């Protein structure tokens, strides 16, 4: 599939925003964060900005962005519509939680409920995003049980890495919160590695024979294409990435997305002050880059069944 920049930016940026929002909601409600108004304001502002910028970016790839509001009407059947509805609903408890934290400097009681609800809705939004991909039977690399946990965990992980930056910025170090960052990095890395290895060994059921309805008649190859230049299908669905480049990019993603942030986040548990802040900031910068590469590969390595009509023998 064509790796569209707007969708890569949306899923990584909003994913991190929802991760941070959920982290703030849960940790705030559990009273693990100081009720400091400026911490709440910075954290929630940053989380909701990432979410909003990502959502806006996602409308850039629409052919008719001015009609984007219509995308919330078909929630009964469409995961994309459900994602839209959840994304908008999340703002309500997040806003209430923000009022409690920033205005009243209170994250307990009903404000805590708002925090937990915004975390749940944030996670549901990410699950809806993942379900858009998971539900597509046309793309075997997405239509499997790894897609949803991977999206959710990477969102939680990106949020945790951001949370580390936030608490270090406010000079509030907490080994438990930093520990959560380390643990999510380990889990995220493990899950994504397993997901990649699943995609390497597993193939979709359809073949070119079943695509043209002459099963078991022999080896089918393309004699002539229907058109002389690339059409929409070839541009959108026919994206091919050379294996050696994919392997190189995957190595980059392993190192910058997971290995280095993990090492830096661990290091930050044992050092203090600006050194620790520098470490978590660098972890965040590297992790963001690594996750963008991971998301690029998620699209570039997805093989749509329509490729069977254009020379692919398996998908």
């Amino acid at each position, binding site marked *: *599939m064509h790796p569209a920049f707007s969708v890569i930016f949306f899923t990584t940026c909003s994913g991190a925003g929802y991760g941070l929002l959920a982290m703030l909601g849960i940790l705030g409600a559990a009273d693990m964060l100081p009720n400091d108004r400026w911490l709440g304001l910075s954290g929630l502002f940053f989380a909701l900005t990432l979410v909003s910028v990502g959502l806006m970016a996602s409308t850039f*790839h*629409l*052919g*008719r*962005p001015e*009609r*984007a509001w*219509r*995308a*919330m*009407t*078909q929630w*009964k*059947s*469409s*995961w*994309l*519509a459900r994602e*839209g509805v959840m994304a908008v609903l999340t703002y309500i408890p997040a806003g209430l939680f923000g009022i409690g934290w920033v205005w009243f400097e209170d994250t307990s009681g009903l404000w805590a409920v708002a925090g937990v609800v915004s975390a749940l809705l944030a996670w549901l939004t990410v699950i809806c995003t993942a379900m*858009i991909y998971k*539900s*597509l*039977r*046309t*793309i075997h690399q997405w239509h499997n049980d790894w897609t949803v946990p991977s999206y959710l965990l990477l969102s939680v992980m990106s949020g945790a890495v951001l949370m580390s930056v936030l608490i270090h910025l406010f000079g509030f170090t907490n080994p438990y919160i930093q520990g959560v960052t380390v643990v999510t990095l380990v889990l995220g890395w493990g899950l994504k590695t397993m997901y990649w290895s699943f995609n390497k060994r597993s193939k979709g*059921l*359809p073949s*070119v024979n*079943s*695509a*043209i*309805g*002459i*099963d078991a*008649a*022999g*080896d*089918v*190859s*393309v*004699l*002539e*294409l*229907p*058109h*002389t*230049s*690339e*059409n*929409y*299908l070839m541009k*959108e*669905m026919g994206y091919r990435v050379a294996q050696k480049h994919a392997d190189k990019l995957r190595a980059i993603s392993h190192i910058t997305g997971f290995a280095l942030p993990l090492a830096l986040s661990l290091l930050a548990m044992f050092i203090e002050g600006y050194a620790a802040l520098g470490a978590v900031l660098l972890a965040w910068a590297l992790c963001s880059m690594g996750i963008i590469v991971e998301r690029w590969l998620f699209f570039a390595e997805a093989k*749509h*069944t*329509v490729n069977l*009509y254009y020379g692919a023998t398996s998908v």
Partner: protein
Amino acid sequence: MTTLPSHTNKKLGLVIDLDTCVGCHACATNCKEWNTGGHAAALTDYDPYGAKPNGVWFNRVHSFEVKRGDRPNLTINFPRSCLHCDNAACVTVCPTGASYKRAEDGIVLVNTDKCIGCKLCSWACPYGAREFDEDQGVMKKCTLCIDRIYNENLEPEDRQPACVLTCPAGARHFGDLNDPESAVSQLTAARHGRDLMPELGYKPTNKYLPPRARKVDSADIGAPEELEPIVADGFLGWLDNVLSK
């Protein structure tokens, strides 16, 4: 709504004969010609007179070669268009209600006034039936010539999809595949019509008739393996004798 109808009264669709299709692209050409002025007009072209012309088409004719060991290779000309699936995921993924499947005849359509151009429906279609119109920013697809088949301004015999009417080889057939007595259903049964990629569960309405077994050996047409020499008598027998010496 983009939920699918629980059942459709008719299942209008095409039966395409891969045995007789000659790959002339007339169906694709006439489809473009009719539909660029029809329900989904216009079928936009980009760079039509330039080096890389391309644009929106509802029908594309591929050609494949099948290698069959020691038997002669087969050429398969394969017209590809919307199959108007029973289980049309292109409809259910649509977030706006622009994509829909008609309960009365099963035809899958796009309301281009509601389409936001998110392209998700084209991702959900295994067959590549939907093509995005970059000029209008909306998705387009085969309408089964809905503006022909019900068009009372046309002669009754012309109320068929443009691709079917124009096929010079008679390889395309249109009708109700829900009615077991219809010509298309009978043809499908007789020729063991196939679903494309049935393993995905889209339950396409259109059927493809696989090529018939090729007649390669003399026995296939009831002829003897080789001819017996003629035994001549009389003058021809004498001549045969003289010349055979």
